[in-house]
């Protein structure tokens, strides 16, 4: 991973964000590495920012339970040394429909299209370990907590929309981007150029991400940029 990063950073002059494995761990020989040391290794190898997923969810849960910032979470430690702008928190929520906001203690939104049982509301439950485990915290609560703990940017995915190509989850992205003052990158669901202009028109997202449609060459990056310029969104064209 570090070698890939080193090679990439020699050729690529756009900022690189690296995610995955940024937590405390002990290697085969018994040496203990703090998450800060892992992140430092990434930075020295060419990363401009690091991205934290599961570890940030646990840190946010602990913070919301106790109301105390321990300063010990990876999020707090890395942002203290490298600055908030170097720490991205990646959120992987799953939509959970409810009939009424009173059913859950988490922030809900009135959904633009009803749930399978005619539900009018949904909350967005955070997951860890690549979406395998659900946690008792919503995307809204997580976003606000990690902003306070030192996150500089939020990468907002949505498990329900990912890979569907049916557009971003506007309800989710609007809720989260209205809740924080740090930049939110909208992710999951882009399938056409119009999806990008829609997310900028309807939400406060600062950026929009797509991967599959670019890798599979279904939509050229240039087409997205040209569409956004036509829609009045400022985009780097060079």
């Amino acid at each position, binding site marked *: 991973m570090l070698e890939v990063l080193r090679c990439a950073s020699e050729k690529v002059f756009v900022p690189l964000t690296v995610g995955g494995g940024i937590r405390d761990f002990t290697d085969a020989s018994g040496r203990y590495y703090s998450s800060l040391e892992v992140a430092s*290794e990434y930075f020295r190898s060419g990363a401009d920012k690091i991205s934290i997923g599961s570890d940030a969810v646990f840190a946010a849960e602990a913070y919301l339970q106790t109301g105390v910032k321990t300063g010990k979470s990876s999020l707090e430690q890395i942002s203290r040394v490298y*600055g908030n702008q170097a720490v991205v928190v990646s959120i992987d929520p799953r939509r959970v429909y409810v009939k009424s906001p009173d059913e859950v203690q988490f922030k809900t939104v009135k959904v633009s299209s009803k749930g399978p049982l005619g539900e009018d509301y949904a909350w967005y439950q955070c997951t860890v370990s690549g979406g395998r485990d659900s946690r008792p915290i919503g995307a809204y609560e997580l976003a606000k907590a990690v902003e306070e703990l030192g996150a500089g940017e939020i990468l907002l995915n949505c498990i329900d929309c990912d890979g569907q190509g049916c557009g971003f989850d506007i309800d989710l992205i609007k809720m989260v981007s209205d809740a924080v003052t740090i930049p939110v990158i909208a992710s999951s669901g882009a399938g056409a150029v119009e999806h990008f202009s829609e997310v900028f028109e309807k939400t406060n997202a600062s950026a929009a991400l797509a991967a599959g449609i670019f890798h599979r060459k279904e939509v050229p990056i240039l087409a997205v940029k040209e569409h956004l310029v036509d829609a009045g969104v400022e985009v780097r064209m060079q």
Partner: protein
Amino acid sequence: MLQPPPPPQGAMATGAANHAVPCSAGRPKKRNQRRGPASLSVRASSDANTVTLLDYGAGNVRSVRNAIRHLGFNIRDVRSPEDILAADRLVFPGVGAFGSAMDVLTRTGMADALREYIRRDRPFLGICLGLQLLFDSSEENGPVSGLGVIPGVVRRFDSSEGLIVPHIGWNALQITKDTQLLQGADGHHVYFVHSYHALPVRSKST
């Protein structure tokens, strides 16, 4: 009773080791051979293609290294405060938080060397935090005192009116004063990633 200051040589060795370990595998060129006390005398023999780089160990300095090499220059790493004073041109990149950077600079004796180097009006490029550290103080996790070379403070952008902070992304430039630093940047988008901005206090002499 006064404690003796920590030996700067030892402190530098740590910084160098931090750096040499992860980079050794992918490094395309041999590292600079000159090191240690001998560096005091290298200035006379240094060539026009060498840029001295101050890597205090807490930032992504690799992107700057790559950029300097890309432009065809060699890099000499600062290992001691003397290396700063011996530099012909010094680049000070900084990704990182203000307070922790100042701690390292003060502990290693780099802070005094930097002040002296700039007082001598030697060529200097401070990037990002490398610029901000020149000011009197910063609001980042503070206030924290800086090097005090430029009168003024570093303030966080005010997000109370809905401004998104950190400011991150590609934006166009409005160049208000002609400068060599921005040669070739006019008309291009450049990438910003910062929460703070430096506010110099205009003195009578400027």
